[in-house]
């Protein structure tokens, strides 16, 4: 207990080195910092800086170190993964080596950021819920940049590091595996993503509608709910016959967000090794509009 008190006191001590953003007054909390650095923070920061440096250096090389071209071409510049012929081998710098270095350090920095959040949560006597949910996002990242390329035997399967490059990858990846709109895991993932937007709007709107009764003080409300929370609960009970509580709405929140991320990751991992063509899967499942169920002749027109 003594060490915990020390930690909180040291945190209070660091508040003396804060500064404020005046323009946020009346909108949100204004205090910036103090940032905790720590050993994991240094690792995360240095590795992320290396990633950014390698990517930007790759961009500069591509525009012949011309700063104006660098700005003009910035949205389409990309540090691309090696061509398929290199498979999973190390490639020369100009042919994907930069991508391999950048991705390696990006992965390291993300993992150290996870450790950093975890250690800060514990140091502040919180449950590690934030890092646990963050690891679902890392799973999706790993599925795209590491697991899928390794299972297909080529780093070329991963997206390039560039603004347009990610969109080009998303577009091509969908078509390469037979149109992702027919991928059931993608369907569940999008359901979770749109559901996240819906739940976020519902929760934000509900709490904002009862801030005069301090319903936004959710840690207190989770312990002992008061009038504001009761009114918010009754709103949804009367509208749709169901209501959450001040605690359980946040469980619903992380559940739908995690479903979105994990289903998305599985959809990427299964594309190729498990199902090379999701349109064919939809044909076999008999769910393509206007095509007759398997077992009848018309399904042959659907299969290619």
């Amino acid at each position, binding site marked *: 207990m003594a060490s915990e008190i020390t930690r909180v006191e040291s945190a209070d001590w660091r508040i003396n080195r804060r500064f404020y953003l005046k323009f946020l007054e009346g909108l949100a909390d204004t205090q910036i910092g103090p940032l905790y650095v720590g050993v994991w923070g240094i690792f995360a920061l240095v590795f992320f800086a290396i990633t950014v440096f390698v990517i930007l250096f790759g961009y500069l090389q591509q525009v012949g170190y011309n700063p104006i071209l660098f700005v003009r071409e910035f949205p389409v510049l990309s540090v691309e993964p090696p061509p398929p012929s290199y498979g999973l081998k190390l490639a020369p710098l100009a042919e994907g080596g930069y991508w391999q270095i950048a991705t390696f350090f990006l992965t390291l920095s993300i993992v150290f950021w996870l450790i950093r959040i975890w250690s800060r949560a514990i140091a502040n006597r919180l449950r590690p819920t934030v890092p646990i949910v963050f690891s679902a996002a890392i799973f999706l990242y790993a599925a795209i940049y590491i697991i899928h390329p390794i299972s297909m035997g080529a780093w070329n399967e991963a997206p390039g590091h560039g603004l347009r490059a990610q969109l080009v990858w998303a577009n091509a990846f969908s078509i390469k595996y037979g149109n992702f709109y027919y991928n059931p895991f993608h369907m569940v993932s999008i359901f979770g993503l749109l559901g996240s937007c819906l739940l976020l*709007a519902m929760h934000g709107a509900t709490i904002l509608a009862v801030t005069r009764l301090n319903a936004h003080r959710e840690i207190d409300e989770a312990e002992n709910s008061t009038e504001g929370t009761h009114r918010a609960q009754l709103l949804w009970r009367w*509208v749709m016959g169901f209501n959450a509580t001040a605690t359980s709405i946040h469980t619903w929140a992380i559940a739908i967000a995690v479903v979105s991320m994990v289903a998305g990751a599985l959809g990427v991992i299964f594309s190729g090794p498990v199902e090379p063509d999701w349109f064919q899967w939809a044909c076999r499942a008999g769910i393509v509009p206007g095509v007759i169920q398997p077992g009848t002749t018309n399904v042959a027109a659907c299969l290619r």
Partner: protein
Amino acid sequence: MLSFEAKYRREAMDAPGMPLLGLGLLKFWVGRFYIGFWGLVALLFGLIGAGIWFWRVVILDATRTGNPLINFVRGQIEAPSPDVGLSLTTDPSKGLWWLVVMFCATVTFIAWMMRQADISRMLKMGYQVPIAFGVAVSAWVTIQIVRPILLGHWSEGFPLGVMAHLDWLSVFGYRFFNFYYNPFHALGIALLFGSGLVLSLHGATILSAAGKKKEGVTEHNINVFYWDFLGYSIGEIGIHRLAFWTALMCVLLSNLCLVLSGTLVQDWSAFWNFWNKLPFWSGF
């Protein structure tokens, strides 16, 4: 009923009726549900619309199978054919049922929003919930009514079916060269992913501290946690404002990206032609 519910029901009974329509009508509950005038409208049109959809898709569809679940996923009511234009056709083969179901759905959605406003007022709450739902309804109205009217064809609307609307979306993405080049689509998607981020961060944050009062854990621990790892803690009201506006702007920008396609912009790649012609780097 919840333990505290009776008091609020009595309070709601005493609240005045809808200010615009003067309706304190049908103020009663069925089980957990409040009915009210707008509840009845929503129920009526919702049942008619959904009933017609199931009748056409699951029972009548010529390509239906023996499996109702498959019929549900695969079935559709197609949008009117292009030659119908904006006329209200009564020809079932040219999109009558699409128009009917569309009308019923739109009325249901708006009634549902009014019902939320009604309940918000009875509970002496702000109108944020019906406003947020109204923004969601605006997406439906933009895609199914405003954009088809601007282009002069009901056929621009999407077919009413689970897989069918995915097919429509897939094709729509390539009709204006490629939707990935649509900047408002990009902003909408960024805010959609942002919604996932804000939702998971907020949910996880509250769950990490809820029920730990006895150990002396309060919202102050959360503030220090965020100052520590991020350098900024947005605060208890701030996070809900961020949530509200992230979700609403996501939908509003998506409306913009859709309504511009085919009306003002035919090719989202060509849309970017101005970029290389900016005077700043015109010499290059």
